[in-house]
């Protein structure tokens, strides 16, 4: 990377140095541009060595697992066991490949839609779903799991990933951060700032955009006029890669290459995975308002689980027995998850005050004491007046619940 201030060049005539001649492109843009067609492995004649074969089979088992996880989580919303669930059905290839592309010490920065990636990384699903269940904001220890809190404010997790990766590099640690964001999220200023910082700092980060065609109801064509989202990379001086997001081996390979590039000091990469949000935005959304079934149909065909299964069978890498075992395994996971989510979570109202500051302020201590007194009074049925108040309290809650049930089409999350 040459910089203008060091190399005054020569002008057209060759006669005398002028500064503008120094302003040549500082990196070769051609190397940064994505290929015209998304990278694919399925349906190609790619040769597989033993390791690759095992990887594809592993991807398959995890996709089956992931699909079942999505179904179970959606079912839990219907039973009122999750406040809301933004499903990644149809996007499992991206979720699973993202998790597998990372090493133990690397960090994942998921959005609200990416609990599956966290689970595929090894997180307890109940912990991963804590936010969406509504019992606490983050259900796991990010440092222990190297999974950042699920980010709801769009694209805000991207600068965090850059900062963390940069910090690790400054400390001499071998850590790559992989940050996930949607097509809609790329319109936010934080996307721009994060990519720019990453490129200037050569931070070991990989940005994975799951372009699933929609930001809630807004189709990509209203989101950007760019040739592709991957083309945004050149504006930051980093390579952009385009991949078929429903082709799990392809996504895995592109991400693994980008992670390796980051790990070896090559800097950040922007990966755009082309996929599709087969379900509504969340269980609370009504997708029929903005798209037709006709549009969804071909994507149900180009389903990440199906296309991988078909190919594995064609290549004789999957037996019926193995497929059944994968399904059975997923079923066991789902049953366990259902059971555990049916148990009422243990909640302590005093947690409200416990973690606002390292040490609660005087003000919070007073408020904590007030709440404790209230709770104690509620527990004492004999307390005069309390019953009356409790009654009011209950009425109020009942009314609120009615609201929620009457208006399930309201958007309650993410």
């Amino acid at each position, binding site marked *: 990377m040459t910089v203008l201030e060091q190399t005054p060049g020569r002008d057209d005539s060759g006669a005398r140095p002028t500064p503008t001649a120094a302003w040549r492109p500082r990196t070769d843009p051609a190397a940064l541009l994505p290929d015209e067609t998304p990278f694919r492995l399925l349906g190609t004649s790619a040769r597989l060595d033993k390791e690759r074969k095992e990887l594809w089979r592993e991807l398959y088992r995890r996709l089956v697992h992931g699909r079942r996880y999505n179904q179970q989580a959606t079912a839990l919303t219907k039973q009122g066991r999750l406040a809301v669930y933004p499903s990644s059905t149809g996007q499992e290839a991206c979720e699973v490949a993202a998790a597998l592309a990372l090493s133990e010490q690397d960090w994942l920065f998921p959005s609200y839609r990416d609990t599956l990636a966290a689970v595929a990384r090894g997180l307890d699903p109940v912990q991963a779903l804590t936010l969406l269940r509504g019992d606490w904001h983050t259900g796991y220890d990010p440092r222990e799991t190297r999974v950042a809190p699920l980010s709801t404010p769009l694209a805000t997790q991207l600068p965090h990933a850059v900062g963390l990766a940069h910090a690790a590099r400054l400390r001499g640690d071998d850590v790559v951060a992989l940050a996930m964001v949607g097509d809609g999220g790329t319109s936010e200023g934080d996307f721009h700032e994060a990519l720019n910082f990453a490129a200037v700092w050569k931070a070991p980060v990989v940005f994975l955009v799951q372009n699933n065609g929609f930001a809630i109801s807004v189709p990509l064509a209203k989101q950007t006029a760019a040739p592709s989202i991957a083309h945004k990379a050149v504006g930051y001086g980093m390579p952009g890669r385009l991949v078929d997001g429903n082709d799990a081996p392809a996504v895995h390979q592109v991400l693994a290459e980008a992670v390796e590039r980051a790990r070896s000091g090559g800097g950040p990469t922007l990966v755009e995975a082309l996929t599709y949000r087969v379900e509504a935005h969340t269980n609370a*959304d009504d997708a029929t308002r903005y798209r037709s079934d006709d549009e969804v149909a071909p994507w149900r065909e180009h389903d990440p689980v199906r296309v991988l299964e078909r190919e594995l069978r064609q290549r004789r890498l999957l037996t019926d027995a193995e497929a059944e075992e994968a399904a059975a395994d997923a079923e066991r996971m789902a049953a366990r998850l259902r059971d555990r989510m049916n148990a009422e979570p243990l909640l302590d109202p005093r947690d409200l005050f416990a973690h606002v500051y390292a040490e609660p302020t005087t003000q919070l201590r007073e408020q904590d004491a007030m709440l404790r007194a209230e709770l104690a009074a509620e527990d004492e049925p004999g307390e005069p007046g309390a019953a009356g108040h409790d009654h009011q309290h209950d009425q109020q809650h009942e009314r609120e619940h009615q609201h929620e049930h009457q208006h399930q089409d309201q958007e309650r999350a993410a």
Partner: protein
Amino acid sequence: MTTATSAASAGARREGPGRTERPRRPAGPAPTTMAQAINRALRDAMAEDDTVHVLGEDVGALGGVFRVTDGLTAEFGEDRCTDTPLAEAGILGTATGMAMYGLRPVVEMQFDAFAYPAFEQLVSHVARMRNRTRGALPMPLTIRIPYGGGIGGVEHHSDSSEAYYMATPGLHVVTPATVADAYGMLRRAIASDDPVVFLEPKRLYWSKETLDLSEPPRTEPFGRAAVRRAGTSATLITYGPSLPVCLEAAEAAREEGWELEVLDLRTLVPFDDETVCAAVRRTGRAVVVHEATGFAGPGAEIAARITERCFHHLQAPVLRVTGFDIPYPPPMLEKHHLPGVDRILDAVARLQWESQYTEGGTP
């Protein structure tokens, strides 16, 4: 202009002077939710004035995540009700430019916390544009923000952010608590030549009133509080989502022998000192109730200015019943955070009723 986009614009654009055909209204009174009333206010404003444009995320085909903009794109076209790219600073920033050109944009921020990316545009431009240009560039801009908790939303979907806007000179900050006000105050906001932060209490979206919108309710100018319940013992001062809670508390208080007056501020900026002070002078005791966190929250200003102006009429300090000074809690714990009937009654009980008898009754 031959592009697809501009062809669409041309289609929706007014052909000449005159009014867009008015949507048919149901004649006579009908039960209406607050969400419907806001939707109707938008429709009526758009029909009457073709400079009114609605912009936001998912406001088009979807009709907004709360369905508040339902049908507007179908009726007025994509150029009048526009699904924008997903970027709040961009939405408010472009709306500012539209207002500079003389349009009346109505911007929807999808949720309270998602208005924060637009904070710089709001504070550094929208709130100051008129002032910095000595009136040459008014900002007839309305920023609709669904706010507050109580709907079981996850993180970042339940903030009460009104204190930020109140502390920003140049903005009007208003929030309806009734269905009729939702209609009337939004019409006023859109008609105002100043920027208005229009805060919509999420958990009242489905509250119903019987309204006759064929005779749209007239509303007073901003800066008029409303007495929602008469009472002599003490005054509850509130707004938006906490009004129903206060009314309920006032009912419950009768059991304890208190007749509580309930005041709905309706507009936080400008502030109705007159009505508020008159009430407090009548009762001599006041409790401010809101969901927002207490420390440096809206109630601080309300309590401080009441005390400045009515000191010698106060039998007790103005008390505050508010959310705790914590980030908004997860859904399963929000009931402990939100001011409820119990906490209001507890506060009323702490209004030094004994001193009334020793120092000489309420005025």
